């Protein structure tokens, strides 16, 4: 029986004056991969941002426990050191800081950095300012490179496939699968994933265990991710909206 890695209870989060998450409950066990579907503005990025501890996402109620401990009072760097990693959807450009500087600062061995950069076709980008003038695909590969070297226990990926061509989706998926120990027997897997996707392309490559639909700051339903994706592809999120309205009437 796998143990619980992340436990979120009744999480309410606001940005400025606007409440974005209205009471999210989510449990992720060790060795499992969860996928979150939802239309734009539904609260997907807010959820991973709040788990990471980014200060613009203010938790107003509820709790986030990681490995059994509440992490709400921890700054993001402590959460990162504890094993939470987030590959950003749109990371900022950082002038003067290149990937190599950063990766060295997070105290990784130079050979590991070069090997990982090689695997992600990013060797030529190591000495350029981070994310400055990077294409969509280069940004995603750079984010995954950072995660690969940080080796988080909980790997969160915010739309890892957007802006990436098919060939690179396969490359990224292979590396993500490896990071999530997908080749190991289920019982020995310790690392978990929380993947936000808009298109679902990535989950065809990475076998996800649980899917969730988030709508209007609430988790509407959870279940088999492939079934959920199929339903969204057939009916769009309109069906989810109807479902939410029905739930509200009840």
């Amino acid at each position, binding site marked *: 029986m796998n143990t619980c890695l992340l436990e979120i209870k009744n999480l309410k989060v606001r940005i400025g004056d606007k409440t974005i998450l209205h009471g999210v409950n989510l449990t992720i066990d060790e060795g499992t991969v969860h996928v979150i579907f939802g239309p734009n503005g539904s609260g997907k990025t807010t959820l991973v941002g709040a788990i*990471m*501890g*980014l*200060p*613009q996402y203010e938790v107003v109620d509820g709790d986030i426990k990681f490995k059994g401990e509440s992490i709400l009072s921890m*700054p*993001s*760097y402590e959460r*990162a*050191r504890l094993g939470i*990693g*987030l590959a*950003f959807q749109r*990371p*900022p450009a*950082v*002038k*003067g*800081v*290149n990937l190599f*500087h*950063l990766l060295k*600062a*997070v105290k990784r061995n130079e050979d590991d950095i070069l090997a990982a950069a090689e695997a992600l076709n990013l060797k030529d980008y190591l000495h350029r*300012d981070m994310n400055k003038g990077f294409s969509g695909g280069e940004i995603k590969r750079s984010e995954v490179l*950072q995660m690969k070297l*940080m080796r988080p226990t909980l790997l969160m990926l915010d739309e890892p496939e957007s802006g990436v061509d098919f060939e690179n989706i396969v490359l990224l998926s292979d590396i993500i699968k490896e990071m999530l120990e997908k080749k190991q027997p289920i019982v020995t897997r310790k690392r978990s994933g929380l993947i936000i996707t808009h298109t679902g392309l990535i989950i065809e490559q990475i076998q996800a265990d649980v899917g969730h639909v988030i709508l209007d700051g609430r988790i509407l339903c959870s279940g088999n991710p492939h079934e959920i994706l199929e339903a969204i592809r057939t009916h769009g999120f309109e069906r989810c909206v109807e479902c939410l309205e029905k739930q509200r009437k009840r």
Partner: protein
Amino acid sequence: MSLSENDIQQLQKVGYDPSGTVPRSGSFLTRDHEVVSLEQREKGLEILPLGAALQKYPWVENLFFKLVPKEKDNYTREVAQHAPVGYFIRAVPGARIARPVQSCFFIKTARFSQMVHNIIVAEPGSELHIITGCTTASYVKQGKHIGLTEFYVRENARLSYTMIHDWAPQVRVFPRSAALVEAGGAFISNYIALTAAELVQAYPVAKVNRGGIARFNSVIYAPQGSHFDLGMAAKLVEPEAKAEIISRAVSDGGVVITRGYLEGGAANTKGHMECSGLLLRDSGSIHAVPELKGTFPETDLSHEAAVGRIADEEIQYLMTRGLDQETATSLIVRGFLDVRLKGLPPELQHAIDTMIEKASLRSTV
């Protein structure tokens, strides 16, 4: 020459190696107003105290106070009133002096007013690199330094001049310099100041002739209580002359004024200037004053200037990688100051990198 262990450390911080182990083509060390070391180790290189050069070569008189006039201001007048103290460094025609000449002006006596006058000549087709460090003994808190330097870059010669300042917090510094870059010549001036000084005020001017180039780079880190007023000017007076001015300034509570002036006065002249400033505290200021003047239609002059603070989202982003706020800030500051200075010997670049590293570690906001 008697130098204490402390003095030696202080000299090394500004790129001067008294031990003789670092590759240098020559040395010139002035303590207060006394020349305590003069060495030349390469053929084609001449190093003399300026007074001796004026006696040895009558023609040096024609270079003396010619680019920087005696009457320029009170400071140049003050220098002119005294017998010259300073160096004369010359690369003879065609000499390629690959290893740098090191020099240092060292204030050893408290409250000393050091006044120096230097003349540098890179004769036609020669190559010369000079590092000048300026510093004070560790116990000296106050003092004054006026440094007047005239650079002559003759046809197709190449001269790089790197000045590193590491003053005590209450020293007032007035470099006064000017360069003449003759046809096809290249003049590279690097200025690095990463510690506090009460006031540094400088405005070197280069006049660039046909096909010549002048490059100014400055890297400044201004802690609380320091005031840097630094200008750099290039006048492109003949066709095909070029200039580039790059300045990076970090105010960690100090005041920085970066002035830049480019004047294009002939056909196909080209100049570009970049002034970037980073403010780390509410108490400091950075004032970038870029000026462009075109007096001929076929000139191409441009500038970019930006002053601001580090964006929160950049720090937040780096923090999600496990770096605390101080480390994230210093990583950004280090990257900001990390200008690759062209034509520097690797060990000097390394020494500068170390100074930048130290300065950035102080920037804990």
